[in-house]
Every structure is written in C-alpha cells, then in structure tokens.
C-alpha cells in the first residue's frame, strides 16, 4: 500500500527532532512538497528504501574510521551521523557554487573526535559530504564530494590540523569502502526517481519521532 508521509521539522530542515506521521493512500504516484517546516512525500508501494544510517553507522565502520584516527593521535568520540543537507548549506558552497544546483541535497556523514597534541585534548568534527544520484543509465551512484574539518581548542590547533590532514586520505579511503555495499545493494536496477527521508524511512502508521541529525534514508523508485 502507498503511504503519505509527513515530516514536521521542529529544529530545522532535516535537523534534530522530526515528528513523523504516515497515512495509508491508494495513490501510487510519487509526489513531494515542502510547506514551511513540513515535508510531505507520497510514497508508492514499490519504493525501495535504504536506511543509510543503519548501513553507515555500523560497529565495523566505526572501527575502520577509529583505526585510521588512532594514527593521527585522535580518538573517535561519537557515532557516525548521517544527515541530509541542501547544497547551499554546505561549507564549501561559496567556493564552488556551480558544483551542484541550489535544489540539490547531499548526504553529510559526520563524527567527533579528540586529538592529543601532545597533551591538550582538542575537539574536532569531520563532516564528509556525499553526492548520491541516479546516473544517465538510471543506476545509483554515491561518491565523496568534499570535506569540512572543524577544530576547537586553546593551543596546538594548527599542529592537530596537519596531523588530521595527513590522515585524511586513509579516512576517505575507508569511507569509500563503506559506500560500496550501499551501491551494490541497489544492484543493477534502473531507478526513475530518488528522494531523501529523515530517519529510517518507516512506513508504519504509528511511526515514532526521528532524529534527522543522525539518520537518513533514501527512497528509490524502479524505472
């Protein structure tokens, strides 16, 4: 059965707490609209949903990232958060505004870590922006688009920054690896449309509120 999902954003678009309701529908056509802080999605029965949060924030992936950070004298202090963001909100938008369209959404995977340089803990957050799309052959593609590193501390910030930058190729290589199963899971299927949903993409009538800063799902409709 098709459902009409309404996402009421209480703390910003695809951010923080979101109230989520699903209503059964006989309408099989996809549709989406944003009215102030409410996103309405008409989700056909044939939807292929992928819970990106569940796929990315696994113990194995956390271990992979943590291992790379240890080499940079850093320790992971959070889960791997997965969030949807509009392109103009991405920190490097201003440098390359034409890289995407203003309407485009990207996936932000972020995590926190502490850096020991050499005795002062420095708090850091690395955000990795992913660009997911259906290519001209209608196949799902996901690739790393860019990164944003934020460090806060009293002293040693530039030293810490250099250490993390040195470890960045290995961290991104691990992220590339964890994206492969997501694309492979979509197989060689041709899709006509894709869209993002905060949370796990639940279709249940009594769906609980979701944390859009931590979990994101993608809906795919077969061509």
């Amino acid at each position: 059965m098709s459902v009409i999902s309404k996402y009421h954003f209480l703390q910003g678009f695809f951010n923080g707490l979101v109230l989520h309701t699903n209503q059964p529908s006989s309408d099989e056509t996809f549709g989406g609209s944003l009215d102030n802080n409410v996103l309405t999605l008409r989700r056909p029965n044939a939807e292929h949903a992928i819970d990106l949060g569940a796929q990315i924030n696994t113990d194995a992936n956390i271990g992979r990232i943590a291992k790379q950070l240890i080499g940079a004298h850093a320790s992971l202090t959070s889960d791997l958060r997965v969030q949807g963001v509009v392109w103009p909100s991405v920190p490097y938008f201003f440098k390359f505004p034409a890289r995407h369209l203003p309407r485009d959404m990207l996936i932000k995977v972020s995590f926190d870590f502490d850096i020991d340089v050499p005795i002062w803990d420095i708090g850091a957050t690395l955000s990795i922006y992913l660009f997911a799309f259906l290519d001209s052959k209608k196949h799902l593609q996901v690739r790393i688009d860019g990164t944003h590193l934020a460090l806060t501390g009293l002293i040693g910030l530039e030293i810490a920054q250099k250490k993390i930058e040195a470890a960045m190729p290995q961290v991104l290589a691990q992220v590339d690896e964890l994206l492969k199963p997501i694309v492979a899971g979509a197989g060689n299927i041709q899709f006509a449309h894709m869209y993002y949903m905060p949370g796990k993409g639940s279709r249940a009538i009594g769906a609980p509120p979701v944390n859009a800063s931590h979990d994101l799902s993608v809906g795919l409709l077969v061509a």
Partner: protein
Amino acid sequence: MEQDQKLVNGIRALLGDAGYGDIVTQQDGNNMLLTARRGNGMVTLHIAAEATTKRRRVEETSVQAHDVRESGIVVPGIDGVVEQLRANPELAKAMNIPDAHLKQIL
C-alpha cells in the same frame, strides 16, 4: 621571532642539562610549542604571539576532484527551493544556509 628562537635554544639547553630528552619544537600557527620528556615526566612550553584564554576554532574545507554536475542525472532535492527562500527568508535559517551563501543564490 629571533628572540623567541634564542629563548627556545636556551631552554632546550637547560632541559638537556636537566636530563630531559625527546625535545621537540613545533610551529603552531604564529605560536611555538616545545615539549620534552624525562621518564614519565614531561615539560611543555607554549610561546604565544598573542595571549588568550579563549578556545579557538579552526576550519578547513576540501573538495574532491570531480567533473562538473553531469546533465541527465536525477538528484534528490527540493524543487523550487530558491523561490521558497525568496518568499520566506526564515527558511534559510531552518536550512542552515549562511547569509553569504543565500545572497549568492537569490
């Protein structure tokens, strides 16, 4: 700067005389950080160009080398978002769009 280097050289010598080893000097932006170890002990010295007790924030962005956005692809997004932002500027805050970015698209 030259005076600071003389100071660091003098301190390095004093630390060496006091049995400290693994003496490392690192440039930290405009500041200098010196560390030395003796057994389980440690000495740290931070020479700051400007004294502060406030935590600082440093940000860095990088992008992957990709071609420009291909045509004929399907990307999740919000159609008509520019028009909505024009009609309702509060939406930019909800979407966490900085003012400078907003001016670029409106």
